């Protein structure tokens, strides 16, 4: 459960807005500039794959766990991706222990759709026995430190963790599954995907909102885009509307900024 407190005082709100209307930001960034990004992979040995991502002071640990399970009845021949996020109370005084609240649900569902619809993981190749057994890959987003823009960090970390994920070879002999832990192979990955999030503050759109900027934004727009510039996910949030022009403008910026984010995934 979350107590959404407006912890940014009115005066801060005004000064941030005033700056942004003059195309300046408190931390000196440009309107379309990300904070410093760092990405480490393979940090948790017991995970199938893992990544620690930082965007500014926002920090997320992502771990994957591949396990064998049953497919969904309506998609019997493909593997399953499951994305879960925990807004740990460690990460912010506004996050409280307990079942996922609506912010956590939205975060994990948007990240899940972005990855799923990008078709980044070739789920067809994760089928073991059609209709009976498939690989299920759990993606757990563990939010450690919250300084705004969880969406982009979540997708970046999840994609890096998936690229880092190894699964054992399996054979099916006489309807029994033999798992060969000696022979590990990477998940079948196709093209990558990233997400770019914009905040509308005053009359401007800024990319990668910090905590303070998120607290005062009037609208938010997150756009998921693949390496080949397919828009695979989009989610508007916030209490105010956006014009069509603002939306298409954000799409344009996403096309160029996504290239920058993709670079972190190369390492």
């Amino acid at each position, binding site marked *: *459960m*979350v*107590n*959404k407190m407006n912890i940014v005082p009115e005066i801060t709100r005004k000064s941030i807005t005033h700056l942004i209307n003059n195309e300046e930001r408190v931390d000196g960034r440009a309107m379309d500039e990300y904070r410093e990004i760092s990405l480490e992979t393979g940090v948790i040995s017991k995970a199938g794959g893992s990544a620690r991502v930082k965007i500014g002071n926002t920090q997320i640990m992502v771990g994957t766990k591949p396990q064998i399970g049953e497919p969904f009845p309506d998609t019997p021949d493909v593997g399953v991706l499951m994305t879960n996020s925990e807004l740990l109370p460690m990460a912010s005084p506004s996050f409280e222990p307990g079942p*996922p609240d*609506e912010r956590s*649900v*939205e975060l*994990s*569902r948007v990240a899940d*759709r972005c990855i799923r*619809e*990008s*078709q980044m993981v070739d789920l067809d190749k994760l089928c073991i026995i059609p209709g009976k057994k498939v690989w299920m890959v759990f993606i757990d987003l563990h939010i450690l430190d919250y300084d705004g823009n969880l969406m982009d960090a979540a997708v970046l970390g999840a994609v890096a963790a998936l690229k880092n994920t190894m699964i054992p070879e399996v054979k099916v002999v006489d309807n029994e599954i033999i798992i060969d832990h000696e022979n590990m192979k990477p998940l079948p990955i196709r093209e990558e995907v990233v997400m770019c999030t914009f905040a509308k503050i005053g009359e401007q759109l800024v990319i990668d909102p910090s905590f303070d900027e998120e607290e005062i934004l009037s609208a938010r*727009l997150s756009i998921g885009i*693949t390496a080949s*510039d*397919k*828009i*695979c*996910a*989009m*989610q*508007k*949030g*916030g*209490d*105010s*509307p*956006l*014009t*069509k022009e603002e*939306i*298409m403008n954000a*799409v*344009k910026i996403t*096309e160029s900024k996504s290239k920058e984010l993709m670079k972190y995934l190369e390492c």
Partner: protein
Amino acid sequence: MITIITLGTNIGAKSREDGRAFDELRNLKIEAGVLERADGSAYLEFGGNKVLVAVYGPKESFIRRFQRPDRAYIRCRYNMAPFSVDDRKRPGPDRRSIEISKITAEALQPAVILEKYPRSVIEIFIEVLEAEGGTRCAGITAASVALADAGIPMKDMVVACAAGKVDGQVVLDLSEVEDKDGQADVPVAILPRSGEVTLLQSDGNLTTAEFEKALDLAIKGCNQISEVQKEALKKRYGE
């Protein structure tokens, strides 16, 4: 007390599984004021979708989380009846309904003059009695009528509609089958007077050009549905 309308013009493109043109809406009817106990209510049928909405409030909020010092708080609960889908849905909220409840509240909020009712809460209950693709848009469209029926002052009536990509073609208002087999779905809600967007999602693979086309088509659909909303209120309250 029922309004039926068929919209759109078939302009010769590839035909859809139910025979509609690419820019044609499913059959739609909206009825306002269908419940006794609620402060406002609306019933909507849209293709095979059947949605009922009740509104309570504005009333004093006793829960601190649902209180704002300077305005009313909109609390929305989107819920599917267990019998509304092919396989019985277990009662109670799931992750999908939690997300839809959140974005529905955000979609409706810009239209309501919340400043008039500080510290109070407006509750919107959306019940999907039967689902056939597009229930979140149906819920938003019906909720606006229910808000108006409750006498809540609004700047405009939010209206929602989806567009998407099916068989490689951008089409309006995907049915359940089209949503399942299609390549993308873009639900949109707008304030019809300003044309501003209050809900926007996109799920699937679209080029920028396709996305813009889908957005334009959805907005066009919204404007058509907006007329049916007005009709429904006229039917109930006269001109």
